[in-house]
């Protein structure tokens, strides 16, 4: 329900700009930080985890104790290269690390080690489909160039206590490994930005490079937004920092575009500032810093010699990673999965996008659709019924407790016409509620007595009973109102608790009526 209202308001909004604000063009570029999925941190042997005991996953290096030195985690370089290759980037043979200075309580060293002069990889591209059901009628293809991918440290976490004017600092995240993916400003609106982020999440999940759990802050988005008259050069931009959900990206960018339009149309000026997205108030709000452009005083990190990788051969050593060897490990990417679903299973692009958007749905689909003739039907059942039942129970698809074995049996029962669509939905519901992988759908159906009756004599008997009890409707039918048949069937399915095979029942009912 919430979703529906939200999309409706989006659509209304969209209509309003096309009339009054069509003289502006919006430009959006993203920077995405993805937390790498490793056991230990980027430069220290402390545990890289979410939700550990406060200040327990901290090494002396992470707390910037004098005399400690950084030692780079090999896995981070591998995952960085993997992501770079999946995004068609050029991996740089030599890259190096720099210090970016700023003073902040959750950054103990007073600088972050990052890659500014010579990043790990550069010049890539991401191709994705933009399709928000209810917002776009048809999917369309979009791409955004990638300027660079760099390895860098995360900062600690601060909890702000506004009342006592102080911050509580937890350093568990300090020094955690991040890759920052810097995109060119190639996008136009919030929906495109959200679609890009969704695609990136899918890619890093496939690669195992990042969990993609935005709710845990494992993937954070900064959006640069500016507007201009068509044909003009890029104008002053604002940066919205740390957006933590995909719908948040769409909402923040859309809000910021509208805000800038309002400011400019009222004769105001856009200043280069950092803003935050308030997900509850659904607005961007200015942050304290950056009234003055900050000087980060970049300098080369003196404690780390250049990082070299082997681009030419599969010769791999402890300190020099072979890039061609990693190239071989790249799995099928979402774009080719969609292509596969459209070409080999004859799915519509909309269905293919929705299935690929949920990794578990895709897994279910590929296993269920062994018999390809039913692929479209299976896709629709998964998208319409399974997702609906999950939404109704407020469960995330990734937490779906239903096993493939259970689903296989349920789909077979449905396709063999042993159960109706209603029963199909009810069984899904039961499976979710019980969350027990040992309970099979057939057992639930048997226990609840939901088996579909396809015995013709029994159905005929029931039809006669209905006809006798509804003389008015029958009279109308006999007078030529053929549509009344539907009403009779409705009564029938209600009285029988959906236990009849309705296509069979409909045929029998017609036959009995004609007698």
């Amino acid at each position, binding site marked *: 329900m919430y979703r529906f209202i939200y999309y409706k308001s989006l659509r209304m909004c969209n209509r309003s700009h096309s009339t009054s604000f069509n003289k502006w063009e919006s430009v959006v570029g993203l920077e995405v930080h993805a937390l790498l999925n490793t*056991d*230990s941190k980027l430069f*220290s*042997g402390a545990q890289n985890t979410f939700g550990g*005991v*406060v*200040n*327990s*996953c*901290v*090494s*002396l*290096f992470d*707390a910037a*104790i004098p005399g400690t030195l950084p*030692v*780079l*985690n*090999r896995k*981070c*370089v591998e995952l960085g290269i993997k992501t770079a290759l999946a995004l068609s980037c050029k991996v740089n043979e030599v890259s190096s690390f720099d210090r970016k200075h700023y*003073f*902040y*309580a959750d950054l103990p060293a007073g600088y972050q080690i990052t890659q500014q002069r010579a990043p790990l990889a550069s010049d890539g591209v991401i191709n994705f489909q933009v399709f928000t059901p209810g917002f776009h009628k048809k999917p369309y293809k979009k791409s955004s160039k990638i300027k660079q991918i760099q390895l860098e440290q995360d900062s600690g976490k*601060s*909890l*702000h*206590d*506004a009342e006592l*004017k*102080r*911050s*509580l*600092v*937890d*350093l568990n995240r300090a020094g955690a490994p991040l890759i920052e993916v810097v995109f060119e400003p190639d996008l136009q609106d919030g929906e495109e930005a959200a679609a890009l982020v969704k695609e990136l999440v899918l890619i890093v999940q496939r690669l195992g490079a990042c969990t993609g759990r935005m709710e845990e802050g494992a993937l954070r988005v900064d959006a640069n937004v500016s507007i201009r008259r068509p044909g003009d050069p890029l104008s002053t931009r604002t940066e919205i920092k740390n957006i933590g959900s995909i719908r948040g990206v769409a909402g923040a960018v859309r809000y910021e575009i*509208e*805000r800038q339009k*309002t400011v400019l149309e009222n004769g105001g000026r856009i200043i280069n500032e950092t803003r*935050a997205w*308030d997900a509850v*108030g*659904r*607005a961007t*709000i*200015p*942050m*304290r810093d950056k009234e*003055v452009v*900050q000087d980060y005083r970049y300098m*080369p990190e*003196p404690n*780390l*010699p*250049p*990082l070299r990788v082997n681009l030419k051969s599969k010769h791999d050593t*402890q*300190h*020099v*990673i072979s890039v061609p060897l990693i190239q071989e490990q790249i799995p099928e990417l979402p774009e080719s999965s969609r292509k596969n679903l459209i070409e080999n299973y004859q799915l519509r692009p909309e269905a293919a996008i929705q299935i690929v958007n949920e990794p578990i749905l895709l897994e279910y689909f590929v296993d269920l659709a062994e018999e390809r003739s039913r692929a479209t039907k299976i896709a629709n059942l998964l998208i319409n019924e399974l997702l609906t039942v999950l939404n109704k129970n407020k469960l995330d698809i990734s937490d779906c407790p239903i096993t493939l074995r259970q689903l296989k049996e349920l789909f077979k029962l449905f396709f063999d016409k042993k159960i109706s669509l209603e029963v199909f939905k009810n069984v899904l519901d039961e499976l979710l509620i019980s969350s027990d992988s040992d309970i099979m759908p057939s057992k639930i159906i048997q226990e609840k007595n939901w088996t579909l009756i396809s015995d013709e004599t029994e159905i005929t008997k029931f039809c006669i009973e209905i006809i006798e009890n509804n003389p008015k409707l029958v009279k109308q039918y006999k007078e030529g109102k053929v549509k009344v048949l539907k009403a009779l069937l409705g009564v029938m399915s209600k009285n029988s608790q959906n236990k009849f095979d309705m296509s069979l029942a409909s045929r029998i009912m017609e036959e009995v009526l004609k007698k």
Partner: protein
Amino acid sequence: MLFRFIALNGVTIQRILSKNYCSKVPSKPVSTVQNDDKNKICIDPSTITLLERLSLVKYDTPKGIKVLEDSITFANKILHINTDNIEPLYTTLENENLNLRPDKITQGNCQKDILKNATVKEDDYFVAPTGNIPLLEIENKELPLKATNKNEN
């Protein structure tokens, strides 16, 4: 025995130094980079305020400002040196490969030691002054804008 050897050596070194043997190390500091720019560095109060806020360090005293100005004067000494067409040297280990470590948890779990350095802490957190937080959380200046935009949606 070892101690005796070192003591003897010390005596030897002293003897050598006293005989005025020629040394490459000057006995007094010598200015090697000539800097003609004798202009006194002066920092305006607003820059001081900005630096104080960024660094969370208070040095708005005559002594503090002098230390800062002296540091800048000291660093400026090399600015006049011509470095055109010279590749910067970032590290003497430029030709070495960076060492990579296996992804193993080998450190951490030393919360007590880590927190030992904190002057103020609470519930195992470090306590620090507030920094970069949304303006709204401190002052409600922008609330009207937020409200109007909400209605618009």
